[in-house]
């Protein structure tokens, strides 16, 4: 597998009047072409910051981030982002929200219209094209946001706790839908989450982060067969992987196993 994203000795320091905050310290991470890589960590560990650095939305303080051997300075082409909040535009219908990227580059809407309709159908939103975001449930809204990110068929998909604001059932549903899409398209995905089971279910590899400063502690291979199912969550192998990650958090004092 060729390397798609490579972060080398990346650090990020926020300077403020009250002093410097070291958000990221010597991050070394590669994401292979077509790999699904998750980052788990406690809130405030800098995992979202790392994603923003990869997206070119934040400048790094030291080190380098390369996407396909090109240094990241500002948002690169061929990139889709999904945020925790869906950030749909309230004044646009579902279909117009999905087609937003076309308008940003002054493209022809007609060219992408069938693609947008197809994506919405894939995410079970057929018939909702002309609705407004406020008429949809949280899960449907996030599906629209994913369709928007996929419109231009980007090679790299960055997802910043995309299902963090959803209820558990909707979250499960979207996990499976995301896996199905990923299986078909084999995009390179960087997925941020604080849910251990979500990370294990979806990923090829899971990077575990700690906070203050934000560092990658360990990267774990998830060698469960695909496609993965919810039933797998009850298997010994799944449990063992979950436990491995939990033990890391416990040893860092992030999780306490005893009440």
């Amino acid at each position: 597998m060729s390397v798609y994203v490579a972060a080398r000795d990346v650090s990020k320091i926020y300077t403020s009047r009250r002093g410097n905050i070291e958000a990221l310290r010597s991050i070394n991470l590669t994401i292979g072409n077509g790999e699904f890589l998750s980052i788990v960590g406690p809130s405030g560990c800098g995992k979202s910051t790392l994603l923003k650095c990869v997206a070119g939305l934040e400048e790094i303080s030291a080190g380098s981030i390369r996407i396909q051997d090109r240094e990241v300075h500002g948002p690169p082409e061929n990139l889709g982002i999904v945020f925790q909040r869906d950030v749909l535009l309230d004044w646009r219908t579902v279909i117009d929200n999905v087609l937003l990227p076309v308008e940003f580059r002054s493209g022809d809407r007609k060219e992408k219209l069938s693609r947008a309709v197809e994506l919405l159908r894939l995410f079970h939103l057929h018939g909702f094209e002309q609705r407004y975001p406020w008429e949809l449930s949280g899960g449907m809204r996030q599906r629209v946001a994913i369709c928007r990110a996929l419109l231009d068929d980007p090679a790299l998909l960055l997802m910043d706790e995309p299902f963090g604001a959803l209820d558990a059932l909707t979250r499960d549903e979207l996990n499976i839908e995301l896996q199905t899409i990923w299986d078909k398209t084999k995009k390179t995905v960087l997925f941020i989450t604080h849910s251990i089971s979500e990370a294990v279910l979806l990923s090829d590899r899971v990077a575990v982060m700690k906070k203050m400063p934000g560092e990658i502690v360990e990267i774990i291979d998830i060698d469960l067969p695909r496609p993965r199912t919810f039933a797998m969550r009850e298997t010994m192998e799944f449990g063992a992987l979950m436990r491995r990650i939990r033990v890391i958090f416990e040893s860092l004092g992030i999780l306490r196993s005893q009440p």
Partner: protein
Amino acid sequence: MIVELWFAIPKNVRVVLIFVLAIVLWQVAYVVLSPPEFLVPSPLKVVQRIVSMPEFFLIHTWRTFYETLVGFTLAVVIGVVLSILVISSRFLEETIYVILVAFNGIPKVAIAPLFVVWMGTGLAPKFAIAATIAVFVIVIDLVLGFRSVERDMMDLARSLRGSRFKTLILIRFPHALPNLFAGMKAATTLALIGSIVGEFVAADRGLGYIIMVAQGSFDTVQIFAAIVLLGIMGMVLFFFVEWVERLVLPWHVSMRDVGHAV
């Protein structure tokens, strides 16, 4: 019980009923207290006056309405341009915004005579005064709207590699429209104040002019007639902006339940 009955009446009818009730109360108070007419006339008298000289009042009302409308439109156009400048660079933000805030501290009524000196006694100074008084609230509201776009939404715009102009047109401006309308609603009243101030200083027509002339002859009925017409005008302008807002912003939270409330 009475509350339920009241809300069973259609909204528009309720509004009219409230006015009728207020006028009836005024008439009752007039009959009971019977003040001298040069202090407070009866509402009947005031209405009679307006009806007896429809053409006269129409001419003057139209004049004030016209001044207000032009002043308001100028305020909106200038306000939008200034707001875009304020958010487009740090330098312009510091200069324009600071000057604007300093300028707003001056009571505009005090500047009105200056406009007359500069522009004469025609329509121009009225437009200018109305616009100057109304523009500030539009800039304040619109700049707030431009700035309240969430961080994630701006990140999304950046990741789509759009120009700043695209981001303004596709995201910031539509996002700030509810604020613009809030500012515009406040601006209608302020523009009306502006044109009346202009007419007080120097005019030969308009409701403000009528009030000044009537004051000289203690014609209180005439003053009240002009005030009633001004009140109606202010309401018409306000509700016109609100009507446009509903057409333009059907998606906005404050508009969503309008469908079944009316």
